[in-house]
């Protein structure tokens, strides 16, 4: 079958603003959108820039906006679309390096801010630290985050204030604050319970809509909010 991809092209080195290019290619219904991008690059335009690696939704490299929705190009197939005209853009709110490749430095700077690592105040035991299945269940979803950036780039609160930590960084804060082995909750809460932190989440829930790992991010952020509120009482 034939499909047409309309791709946002932009090379800041030689252009002042983006333009769109259309590519009509032969594909199979089972092709991933990533396969379609490869086909364009390999057969028509070698300059088309996008990131990718694992090609099955675990490395988080290829979040792009497809028909207006942030998703992984490797996790959606041609047959998942009703029409054979598909629009592809970079994920918004981050500077474009080229075409579909965005500069994720600010995204990872925010990740670094929330102290994304286990903080403990006691020496480890000779074997593993014990954790009940119930306690592990509290972080079951949060540990699945692949840092693709689809959520943060879909968040209107972040669009209007780019110093907002955003859903991905806050989810990481949750992942450790609610880990029964962690002793760093207070210092991490100091970071998230701030002007550019948690309270900028207005439960718009775009993040849940777009998360390729089906993480209910807003629920996790609401648990963090509860934790902050109870801390202040």
């Amino acid at each position, binding site marked *: 079958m034939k499909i047409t991809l309309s791709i946002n092209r932009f*090379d*800041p*080195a*030689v252009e002042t603003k983006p333009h769109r290019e259309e590519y009509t290619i032969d594909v199979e219904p*089972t092709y*991933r959108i990533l396969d379609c991008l490869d086909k364009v*690059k*390999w*057969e028509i*335009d*070698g*300059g088309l*820039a*996008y*990131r*990718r*690696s*694992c*090609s*099955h*939704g*675990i*490395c*988080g*490299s290829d979040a792009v906006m497809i028909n207006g929705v942030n998703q992984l190009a490797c*996790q*959606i*197939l041609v047959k998942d679309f009703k029409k054979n005209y598909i629009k592809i853009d970079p994920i918004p709110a981050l500077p474009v*390096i*080229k*075409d579909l*490749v965005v500069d*994720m430095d600010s995204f*990872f700077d925010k*990740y*670094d801010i929330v*102290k*994304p*690592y*286990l903080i403990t105040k006691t020496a*480890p035991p*000779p*074997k*593993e*630290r*014990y*954790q*009940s*299945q119930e306690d*592990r269940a509290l*972080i*079951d979803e949060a*540990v*699945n985050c*692949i*840092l693709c950036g689809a959520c943060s780039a879909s968040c209107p609160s972040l669009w209007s204030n780019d110093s907002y930590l955003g859903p991905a960084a806050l989810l990481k804060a949750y992942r*450790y604050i609610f*880990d029964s*082995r*962690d002793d760093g909750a207070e210092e991490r809460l100091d970071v998230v319970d701030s002007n550019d932190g948690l309270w900028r989440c207005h439960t718009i829930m775009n993040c849940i809509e777009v998360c390729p790992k089906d993480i209910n991010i807003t629920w996790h952020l609401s648990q963090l909010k509860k934790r902050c509120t109870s801390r202040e009482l």
Partner: protein
Amino acid sequence: MIHKHDLIIVGAGLAGLRAAVETSGYSDVAVISKVFPTRSHSGAAQGGIAAALGNEEPDSTEWHIFDTVKGSDYLGDQDAITLMVNEAPEVIYELEHMGVPFSRTKDGKIAQRQFGGHTKEVIKDGVSKRVPVLRACYAADRTGHVILHTLYEQCVKRNVHFYSEYFILSLIIENNTCKGLVAYNIKDCQIHIFHAKAVMFGTGGYGRAYKVTSNAYANSGDGVAIAFRAGIPLEDMEFVQFHPTGLYPIGILVTEGARGEGGTLLNKGGERFMKNYAPTVMELAPRDMVTRSIQTEINEGRGIDGKDYVHLDLTHLGAAKLKERLPEITGFAKTYAGVDPVVQPIPILPTAHYSMGGIPTNVYGNVLADEKGKIIKGFFAAGECACVSVHGANRLGTNSLLDAVVHGRRTGKTMNEFLKTAELLPLPSDVGEKDKAYFTKLFAGKGTENTDNIRNTLKLGMTAKCGVFRNETDLKNLLGTIHELRERFKNVGLMYSGTNFNTELMEVIELGNLLEYSEIIILGAIERKECRGAHWRTDFPKRDDVNWLKHTFAFKTDKGVKLKYKPVTILNYQPQERKY
């Protein structure tokens, strides 16, 4: 631009990051990675990491050692295997202390599941028998993902310096001493020199030479090819593991943990065919055996609807267990194959998965200059790109993450000692010139050959003629194809000559690497006239311990590739017939 560091680690998967954790704080460490660290392919490992913790049932390191030796078809070096297995519990506890969110047993310990080839001894009616054991420590079916992220987090905590999206081009080695490397920044194609007292490779495997593969785009064996070009031999390259269960048709990994949890393999008649091949352990035989069994069913017309796949049936496990233990592959099956594993069997076929061979090292992570054990000063390697050899002719499932973490850590310790006295040695005057000239030639845009066309011919050939079953006629024919492709590659061209995030350039360099090492896989396979582990010659259908119980060492010479051999280290376990 020249950057100076004490230590440069190339690759940010489990081996590289574990080494970075070990060395940061002692030296000025920087990590170079062609992808952002958490995108590394260790993150795609699903089922578990092996250690005889005995959390679920009695287990012993001695059983784990024996299983690994037998699994390797006796080509694994028993000194290295013993060290790795004995360190396994310690490194797992360490990972847990760093924050890895393992799944848990009812009493809060690290949960463990069964995996192929991992067994315990039971004595029934006075007869000793080996049956599957719960040894693989896991986090649902996302074990690699959670370990990768935890190690990256530890690097953030330790302020490790990362050069993300830098791609290595060549090593700087003079007088048997490594002085650094040449890389370029993918964002702007600028060449950078990294001057260092020590370099470590944790650059991953070489599965991308195959059409059907579970490997990421990034797994183009860059480190292996670059080391070879720098004059370092490669060990046991002909041993490529084909994982039994790749999702049909593209080969995405479906974890062996699915069979560890009770999944069965069925042919078109609905027959559980593994009973004909490995009656005691059935679907939990080692990967090479299960893969050959599946391929035999397919080749003899017993694939589903006569096509080239069989079924992995998980329907009897129930929705709750699939959600708890195997959520990731349940999602893959729905997304890519359109089947719901709760009610439908999953179509699977063997897929190129793991590289047993690679850059030869000793058990301390020093890279070897020859088959006699001489080392290259200042150059280290660990993980899938390295060959210690702990996996021999066939790796057991869950031993790969263990290998990466144990040897990342061991190599880190070795480098800490080395760096106490090592110095920054003067670089050659023409450093980086060859790479710059190559870039200039490519950007001049005169080449007419197409990257994808050459690559696709290579990958189809490797899967068809250097795959699960091999024979001399096919291999020699394929070698001819590779020689033609290498000639054509000299005239490869770029469509896009801009320098801003030029991924086409990256693909050209990767293709050069694929061609470099594929030839060595084929040469090793032609020469090795026996069946051992993952290397199966239909024209020499038996293992031959008299002539072939030895490691292949491939050297680059002026007259082409030269093969030499190195004896296997055997301690407690003499080779015996491998039955399950």
